[in-house]
């Protein structure tokens, strides 16, 4: 089974527990203005100004690459993460990746933006050890303005996954001027109270490293010039989503 990746990154330490290899599947239904992987937008292999984005690869090859670091995963409690884009867009490929990873005793994470068919997500989650679920903006209108879609389906999917017993960590990008306000932080907290079995909520502070890629792709970056938040600010954000019973 073949699929399309735009990156395969070893020694990742921010996408799930331990030392991990992350496979980035190409294609995304959202268009977040701050996205630092804009090459993930389109599902197929693209060529822009002579530069190619994405490549075809078999599930076997991806897992073989991931297996090269198996000893590191075992020592650190890591594994392999399938991210994107939105990996559920290549559902069949993703499922064969997950099956193959399991056959090789690899711990698996899937990072999803939540905007996918509920059934597909449930099917994926049954094959996955841990779901990293993105939660971006609490207000549906604003969500639509910044990502191209409202957040209703995303919230319904979160609920469905939670109720199906999936292990979930919430991943919350915080973008200065977009969602770095108390209303949003309380919404995150509320979700944690609503779904107390979730394993935690991570703050993903804005990073401007995507800016140059938008240009390369011939796209307009709406956040040009926006500075990365400093450490102090990030720590404040982290404090704001802590709940008494579920500290992370």
């Amino acid at each position, binding site marked *: 089974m073949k699929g399309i990746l735009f990156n395969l990154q070893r*020694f990742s330490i921010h996408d799930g527990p*331990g030392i991990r290899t992350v496979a980035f599947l190409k294609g995304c239904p959202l268009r977040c203005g701050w996205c630092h992987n804009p090459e993930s937008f389109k599902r197929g292999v693209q060529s822009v100004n002579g530069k190619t984005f994405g490549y075809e690869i078999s599930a076997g090859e991806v897992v073989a690459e991931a297996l*090269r670091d198996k000893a*590191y995963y075992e*020592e*650190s409690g890591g594994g392999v993460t399938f991210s994107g884009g939105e990996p559920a867009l290549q559902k069949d490929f993703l499922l064969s990746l997950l099956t193959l990873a399991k056959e090789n005793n690899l711990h698996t994470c899937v990072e999803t933006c939540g905007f996918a068919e509920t059934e597909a997500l449930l099917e994926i989650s049954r094959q996955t050890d841990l779901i990293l679920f993105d939660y971006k903006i609490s207000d549906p209108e604003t969500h639509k303005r910044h990502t191209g879609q409202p957040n209703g389906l995303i919230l319904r999917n979160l609920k469905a996954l939670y109720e199906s017993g999936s292990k979930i960590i919430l991943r919350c990008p915080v973008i200065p001027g977009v969602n770095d306000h108390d209303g949003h932080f309380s919404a995150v907290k509320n979700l944690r109270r609503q779904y107390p079995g979730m394993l935690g909520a991570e703050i993903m502070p804005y990073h401007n490293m995507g800016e140059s890629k938008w240009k390369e792709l011939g796209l307009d970056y709406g956040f040009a010039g926006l500075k990365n938040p400093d450490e102090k600010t990030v720590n404040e954000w982290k404090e704001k989503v802590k709940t008494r019973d579920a500290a992370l």
Partner: protein
Amino acid sequence: MQPYEYIKSFTDAYRNAEDLSAAEREYRCLAVQFPYVFDPIGDDDLFAGKLKAPEVGLWPEPLGGRGVCFHYDEKKFLRLIEENADGKGRELQAILSFWEKENTRKKIREAYPADIAGALPYDDVYYKESCVAFPLYRVVGIYLDYEKLLANGIGGLDGVIAGRLAKAETDGDSGAVLTLSFMRKELALFAEVCERYASQAESMAARAAGKRKKKWERLARTLRKISSGKPETLHEAMQLSSRYTLAAGSYNYGRMDDYLGGFLARDLESGVISKDEASEYIRSLWRLIAYRDSVFHGRVIIGGKGRRNEKTADAFALLAIEASKTVAETEPQLTLRVYEGMNEAVAEAALDCIALGRTYPMLLNDDVNIPAVANAFRVSEELAREYLPFGCGEYVLNHQSLGSPNGIINLLKALEVTIRNGFDALSGKKMGLALGRLEDFPTFESFYEAYKKQIGYYMEILARQEALEYEVVAKQAPFLLISALFDDCIERGVPVLSGGIRYLGGTVETYGNVNSANSLFAIKSLVYDKKVISPEELVKALDANFEGYEALRQKLLAAPKYGNDIDEVDGLAADFHQFVCEKARAQNEATGLHSYLVVVINNQANTQVGAYTLASADGRGAYDALANANSPAGGTDTQGATAMLNSLVKMDPSIHAGSVQNMKFSKTLVTEHRDLFRALLRTYFKQGGTQAMINVFNRGDLENAMREPEKYGNLIVRVGGFSARFVTLPKDVQTEILSRTLY
């Protein structure tokens, strides 16, 4: 004594010994040298331990200077001559001319047969001449038997020698009689130095008050005691071991936790000192080691298998690490031998120190290194437990072997002259074997064979040069204070370099290993397999330093590189590594050395010899630095730390005498993700990693330090096998360090 008087006396001592034995000449010269070089004890020092580098002298390797055995410092001479325009100046000039002929380095060169003289440059000029291989003049890597020293004391040791001497006299073994009797005399010289220091301490004590008085009194007592008696306290043991190291001309301090751990435990238990006082001693010793400024040396080894008492040794090791945290100097080069099942507290303390960006301790993995050393040195694993790294990372067997790295080979330069039919385009001279031009080889295999032949030619020359160097040095001086603390020398009545030790070996420093492997791979895949570049075009592009060949260079750069866990290129790198190491290792028989082994170490020679190396087929520009030891070429490892480490462990460690791995990690990783950092190192070691020298920076530190050096005076970096203040390094070395990938 003033320099002029000293120089005259030393030279007279040497001259007047013309008809005497080397042992007696050494003794007479040291009798002049010792009182001159030992500086008074500093006000803040807790030990006597300062030494100056004399204008002319006798050490296995002079401090800070180039040379070996009898050596002189030309610059110091010239300065003195300039300052003394009168008759003294003329006299000094005459003495300088004398030493220009009489120094040991000169004598080694004069002993070269035509083929060695033809293949190697006249001098150790790797930093300023274009050549494939160079000789180095020195005897380094001396690890003394401190156990023996401390268990016997000077008096006891003298007794042991006297006993052996009596037997030699009865046997009529005149060689042994000579060696052992002057060994005793040199010990007496050492005792005199201690007595002299004791007197200084006593007169200081008389003038001081309070805490200072106590310190001087303690020093006086200790120095009197160790001049003959057996040390009983930590202070005495530290004083005796460190002072003897200086007198013998060694730059390494051995398995310190092992030989001092017992003293520490006893002192603490009996309440002679507190833990804080012990720490103060260690910090003071650290400062004295740093003061000596031996740059590539100053090794203190802690941890590891084979220590007599792990518990007491670990307690000392913890204090040693603590001292390295607070004394932020580039020496001592604290080195921790790690192993499965070691004391976790020691391992954790080491990580804490590393996380501070101290570059220390360096980590060596016993689980891999012990069997590897056993194989490489052809000794038992039991004996291999005594392996110790010195200098930039070369192994010897503690007080049983020597393996001075006395040759350098630039493997990339060897490739450069091979593809040009034995011609050095930089100097316009013939160089090495003429085996054909690149286009003359129909297959990659035939070309690779030719390249191997070229390397073999130089390896053989270098090995013979090393054996010859030992031979000449042995005739010049027996180094009796060293011989007294090397296994078998007393028993055999034979000095260290003349057959006194069982394992007299040599080592050769290889540079450009990784650039050569990457270049070979590019040649194989682009010139031979895919035929997208013709051999003629490649050589032309390299001659032109890629000017006008930008597209071709891009192809070379795009070829897979070692360091990314890509089997095809790593496989070739491992095969090449195997060849180079085995070729060296096979030289032991012809040379009579116990072993002759490659060391894949690095000081800054990767930058220095790179400056005389043209553009290479891996896409590297002319004169750019070569990759550091076995580490990926700067910035070519793009697949993450695990991939880089996986590449490293593909190189067989059991066929060489040490290979250093420099790694750069971000402060965030080692502090905020400590568990992952720990897991990373542990796995690397489990997978076969031999060694890790770890730099820790914040992103941007090095760039900022280059821009505003005044703000980064304390930024210490691991250059290769030594650490340095970043801002004091030459620009090209700084750039090379910056180019390494930061994980």
